[in-house]
């Protein structure tokens, strides 16, 4: 019996180690290949993982101002920051109203937004582009434009946050209201301080999204390279024929993007897990 258990433990560990290798290998590869020089070795696809010589050439390329990498990086940080801020405010407002207050049309609104969410997002791309263009928020203005679109539609993503608010006992609100507090006061001084995990979750998810936004960002920037975000710019590197070292450049850029975002995420992982678990159960 004991040996059987021991074997099962060893097998479990073996599986876990195997899983870990599979999961980490691409990142190790990305990291290693970013140190291959595109000047002295080969900047394209090669048939070996470990660079022959350690070099920072690809990083040096990114740091040259004329290559705009940090412009794009800054754009993405700005977008991500304001989207996180705006989304969180919108989601909190909508969630409180829908969780705590009973007004005419509440159910209708919730159902209507649910149905709206079933339309694919890219359907409306040309129309949104036109609306933004009218506001002067394409090309050079693409960054505020992208923030505007993301924040304006954020209200529809209230599910997880409302689910969290629903778990805060209503009796607390009622007690405060009997003592004369207004709804606004209850919201600002009671509910928001109690909702730290869900606020962090909402902000984190909103912050992560713009790093992956290729489609709409490239459409709105429309060839105006100062308005690109990192995803748009680096996508171009990967899909260009990689004879000039675009691949190692992509690897280096990828490392620079992934490291801070990953560290941020890992620090706030606890809240993320809380959010997704809560959201999944409530549906």
């Amino acid at each position, binding site marked *: 019996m004991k040996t059987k258990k021991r074997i099962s433990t060893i097998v479990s560990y073996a599986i876990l180690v195997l899983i870990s290798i599979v999961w980490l290998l691409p990142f190790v590869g990305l990291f290693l290949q970013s140190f291959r020089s595109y000047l002295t070795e080969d900047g394209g696809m090669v048939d070996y993982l470990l660079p022959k010589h350690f070099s920072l050439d690809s990083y040096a390329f990114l740091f040259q101002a004329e290559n705009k990498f940090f412009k794009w990086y800054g754009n993405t940080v700005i977008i991500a920051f304001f989207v996180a801020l705006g989304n969180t405010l919108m989601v909190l407002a909508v969630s409180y109203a829908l969780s705590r207050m009973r007004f005419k049309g509440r159910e209708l609104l919730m159902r209507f937004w649910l149905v709206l969410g079933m339309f694919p997002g890219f359907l409306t791309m*040309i129309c949104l582009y036109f609306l933004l263009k009218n506001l002067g928020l394409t090309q050079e203005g693409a960054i505020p434009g992208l923030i505007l679109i993301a924040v304006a539609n954020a209200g529809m993503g209230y599910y997880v946050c409302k689910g969290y608010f629903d778990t805060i006992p209503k009796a607390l609100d009622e007690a405060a209201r009997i003592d004369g507090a207004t709804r606004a006061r209850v919201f600002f001084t009671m509910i928001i301080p109690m909702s730290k995990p869900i606020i962090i979750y909402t902000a984190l998810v909103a912050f992560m999204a713009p790093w992956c936004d290729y489609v709409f960002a490239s459409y709105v920037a429309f060839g105006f390279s100062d308005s690109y975000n990192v995803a748009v710019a680096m996508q171009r590197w*990967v899909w260009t024929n990689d004879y000039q070292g675009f691949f190692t450049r992509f690897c280096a850029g990828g490392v620079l993007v*992934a490291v801070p975002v990953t560290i941020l995420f890992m620090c706030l992982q606890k809240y993320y897990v809380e959010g997704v678990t809560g959201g999944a159960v409530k549906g």
Partner: protein
Amino acid sequence: MGNQKTNPIANFFTALLGAIKDIGSIFVKGDWKTKISYLIMGFGSILRGVYLRGAALLLCEGGFIYYMITFGSKYLKDINTLGTKTSGFNADGTKSYGDNSFLILLYGILSIVIILFFIYLWYINIKENAKEEAILKSGKKLPSVKSDFMSLFDEHFDKTLLTIPFMGVFVFTVLPIIFMICVAFTNYDANHQSPSKLFTWVGFENFKNLFSIGTDGFGKTFGVVLSWTLIWALFATFLTYFLGMGVAMLINKKEIKLKKLWRTILVVTIAVPQFVSLLYVYKLFASDGLINMYLMKWGWIEDQLPFWTNPNWARVTIVLINCWIGIPYSMLIMTGLLMNIPEDLYESARIDGANSFQMFKAITLPYMLFVTGPFLLTQYTGNLNNFNVIFLLTQGKPQSQVLAASAGYTDLLVTWLYKMTVNDTNYKMAAVIGIMVFVVTAGISLIVYGILPSVKDEEGFQ
């Protein structure tokens, strides 16, 4: 959601009928202030001293009239043709500007929505008058301006909170969606680009095209793409679900140490932005990628494996890579839920002599399926529209001459829609595909939602 079986359409008409009756009877019974308010909105309220509401209503009416005269009407009048005058050149060589179908359609829709909203506001104005009259008749006082204003932070706080989100969704989601639904019934495509050319209504022509199987028709391609979309979502959802559950159970085992480390390793794929990780993985599996290169170097294969070039290989590869992306996510969710299963259930099963597989089948699986039913549904519909994974990996390739409109064998409906919009500027068909995505998503959601055991009364959680 409400479980009482009522017919929403019938409800709507009874409500509408009631409203019309109200409008009549209030006019007959109301005093002269109320009667004038039928024409000048907010008139009665202002005279009765409810300045804030009255002024707001009056302002809305003024704004509405101004909008319609200066802006709305000129677009609204052309909405049935979407413009007749083409842009071109005058006899003297100067450019003459014709109608712009795009603007006519967009602002026409906006005007119609604004008119409907105005009618609703007008109805509110009438009800408001009747309410004020009733309050005065019963000898009570009407709310002061200050208390009216303060109520926006108390009993009417919902209006303060929801106004901006509602307007945002309206302008940047609702209006564009109505617009695109309308585009599906027009011939707006590369040959009818506004502003230089006009487009117009064509009825169900585009839908016929979608289902026609002829050489020019989209029928066959649509069938291929739709079936792959459904199959993809099925595999993507259930493979990650069950494998994620497996991994979660493995890590949850008592004898496994360093639980946190294992979980963190998996979570890295969630943390790293997908465009970095997926693009790298795409290159990893490319024909000149590391995997092919190493396999050849080691002499395991003769020729490169066609990960992205053979339709079936590409499909399988995508599903597997999606596991790499999706398993950590479902593992996280499962971990918390697995711990919620009462331990004594397993204890008593063990006493009854059940082995671990039996326990899984009888306790774990039913519990998890019950609790995560809605989650599975949202995962499935999310995967139907999983743009990122497909687009970053294959962009729908491999393409084929057999398929219409540059569709490829790994294209989902959404990526196909994207290609039509951006590459082919075939807006009419993109709109049709968009509607089909909606039909599929909504249809599946409705059916599954009806049979889910765990759909509880929403208020039940509170």
